[in-house]
């Protein structure tokens, strides 16, 4: 188990030694800050009217939830850039023999890589969380709803990272990995657009969609079905990545 952390720590360190990770952090933060401020501005405009309503939506519903919801879309674009190098870059630079010759199993390699990139994703979630938390300085928040949203964001990023890791295991070119990850994620994101008119199919596709399960969490509803969906999604792609590395050793 120790070796998994070793690999994860190296991965995280290398990520932060490249300008790419810092750029992604900066750009994502900039875009989300803009959305956050725009959302906050419109809340301020209607705050007086909302105060008259009974059971009116609070600042969490109007400002925080939409920002967290949009964060997933922004990160759908950004996360393939973070995950693309995980294995593809090692294959391109021919550093994989280091891992293959060491007394380390394929599962440990994949787990280490995954945990490393998840460390980065958690930094992202932490930075994004700072924005809604700053509202605590001047008011109160529905912290439960915020926590559910952040949990959802972490799970969505976990799913993005798992898919990205698998795509990165397929190629020696990081850009190819990024493009195919993005394609895959976008497809799973919008998969419920099709079949909406057909009763059974639409329902089945909606269950597959990354977006549908996310929406629940952003609304503050934490259900086992949604959690199970993300865990299965993550394990499925990590399993594929392990299989892929094993097959590479067999097939050459």
């Amino acid at each position, binding site marked *: 188990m120790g070796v998994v952390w070793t690999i994860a720590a*190296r991965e995280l360190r290398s990520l932060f*030694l490249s300008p790419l990770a810092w750029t992604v952090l900066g750009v994502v933060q900039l875009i989300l800050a803009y959305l956050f401020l725009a959302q906050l501005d419109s809340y301020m405009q209607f705050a007086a009217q909302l105060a008259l309503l009974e059971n009116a939506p609070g600042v969490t519903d109007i400002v925080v939830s939409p920002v967290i919801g949009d964060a997933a879309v922004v990160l759908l674009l950004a996360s393939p850039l973070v995950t693309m190098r995980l294995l593809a870059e090692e294959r391109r630079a021919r*550093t994989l023999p280091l891992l*293959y010759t060491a007394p380390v199993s394929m599962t440990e390699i994949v787990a280490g890589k995954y945990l490393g990139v998840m460390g980065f994703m958690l930094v992202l979630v932490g930075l994004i969380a700072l924005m809604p938390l700053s509202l605590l300085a001047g008011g109160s928040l529905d912290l439960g709803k915020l926590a559910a949203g952040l949990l959802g964001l972490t799970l969505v990023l976990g799913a993005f990272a798992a898919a990205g890791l698998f795509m990165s295991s397929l190629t020696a070119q990081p850009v190819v990995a990024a493009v195919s990850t993005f394609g895959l994620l976008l497809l799973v994101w919008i998969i419920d657009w099709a079949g909406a008119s057909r009763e059974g199919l639409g329902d089945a596709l909606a269950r597959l969609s990354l977006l549908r399960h996310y929406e629940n969490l952003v609304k503050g509803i934490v259900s086992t079905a949604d959690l199970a969906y993300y865990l299965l999604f993550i394990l499925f792609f990590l399993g594929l990545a392990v299989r892929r590395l094993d097959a590479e*050793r067999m097939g*050459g």
Partner: protein
Amino acid sequence: MIPVMEREVLLRAEGLYRWYGERCAVAGLDLELARGDVLGLLGPNGAGKTTTLHMLTGNLAPSAGRVTVAGHDLLDAPRAAKAAIGYLPEQPPLYRELTVGEYLRYCARLNGIARARVGEAVRRAMARCGLEGMERRLIGNLSKGYQQRVGIAQAIIHVPPVVILDEPTVGLDPIQIREIRELVRELGRDHAVILSTHILPEVQMVCSRVEIIHRGRIVWSAAMDALERELAAGALLVRLARPPAPEALAGIPGVEAVEPLGEGRFRLRHAAGASPAEAVAEAAVRGGWGLLELTPERRSLEQVFVELTTAEEPGARREAA
């Protein structure tokens, strides 16, 4: 009788095969390596050297056959087997963005060295590879020679019984080459080393055994001292304008055998280190044979190599190893 020395076999490969689709890269390769051996693996490009090394180090699964490292089967007990191997691939697996110290600490942890002993292991490996004072240098900024040393340091950091080096001296300057060779020789004292190369003098200088690999098989295998003897046991080539009967040549002291080659040419075989060249010249003058040429013939490793690897169907030939 000299008592047979106990050979501690550290690496054994039996009947290794590797197919890439229809193409057979390695065909039934056997290999045995004991402590103290420095095995030179020679072969032309595409002979299957790198494929073989990849299979020995667990980077590639063999299509058939088995590999045992320090008594552990590479397939059944990969963890124990791999812990006993250090490998420097043709291209050193370096992370350019890390410093030498960070990188070696990572390699040490990867190879299961306990956290408390990592510093000690890194210091020792760096000292052995002449990397003192380079700990804080960025690998990407090092010269090729130093990168190569970091690659070797990575391979020996966990003091594995078996060290496998794939062309460790490529692209180095002559001084660095000498240092690396010295290091390999030193490693051979308490490890078992495989050195893949196509630089023939390097093998003669460093290795205790040579195996030539061609078209995926071992076509030649010999201990270095046996090889030296064979190479030294020489012959003279003479060309005479008026050649006498071969018996006259055979009568010259020191000549053991005479092979007529036609057109006044003869090959005179003699014992190692006792060239009868002077006697032949004197006899030729005395007999009025008209000596035109007198050259010592020396078979070099290169000749053996070229003969074996350019032959259409190389017959497998094994000698005392």
